[in-house]
């Protein structure tokens, strides 16, 4: 059942993104930023937790998950260390995504030549 939800949740996010891309003048850069902010907003209202519980991999591959991880990381940091925790905890959960995209992008850029 999680498979079906994963498909539906990820698909719905992408379909909404496509509708925004086609009907407004926003660029892909705008839309990805918008969905990241949307992710932290949904986390704020407690909706994203439910999406993750429902559709696991579907909800956690969408870029909105980045906003969700930033929000929950910062909130958990606050609960543990107070104000400082907001700063120290913010990136803890999203570290995998940021560090891996930096490392892999740097490696492939050094090895491969750009195709045109």
């Amino acid at each position: 059942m999680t498979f079906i939800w994963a498909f539906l949740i990820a698909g719905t996010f992408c379909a909404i993104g496509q509708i925004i891309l086609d009907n407004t003048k926003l660029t892909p850069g705008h839309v990805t930023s918008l969905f990241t902010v949307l992710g932290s907003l949904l986390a704020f209202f407690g909706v994203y937790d439910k999406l993750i519980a429902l559709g696991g991999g579907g909800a956690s591959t969408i870029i909105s998950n980045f906003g969700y991880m930033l929000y929950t990381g910062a909130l958990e940091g606050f609960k543990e260390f107070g104000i400082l925790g907001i700063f120290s905890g913010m990136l803890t959960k999203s570290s995998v995504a940021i560090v891996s995209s930096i490392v892999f992008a740097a490696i492939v850029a050094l090895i491969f030549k750009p195709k045109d």
Partner: protein
Amino acid sequence: MNKEEYQKLVKKYEPKENKIENVVYAFLIGGLVGFIAEGLIILLMNFFNLSRLIAASWTCLIIIFASSLFTALGFFDNWMTKAKAGLLLPTTGFAHSVSSSALDYKKEGLITGLGSNFFKLAGSVILYGILSAFILVIVRVIIGG
């Protein structure tokens, strides 16, 4: 041929962007990415006895690795244009933007090219993600005490 006829002719041969088709494509491909991610999570959980959280992190790593590699091999750009938002909104889009700007600006030097243009596209995601999360946590702390 007068101007009006010409405009009609242009309109006739203009490639029509089928919006409904685009949305269906985005839905199916985005859904497929979510489906594969969920499959990887379940696979890793069962094969290596990992918790769901750890398996999800590994899945994120694998997807980012795959999209960086596919970008470097050159065929991911074609996929991106066909799938549109279907590959843009999953983590694949983020990894693609980082690795494609890294590849494109490498020729301008390691510091002034690669280094300073690395986050050209992904920078706004990180900036506005952190900014919005920061503000919302402050609001949450004030409301929730």
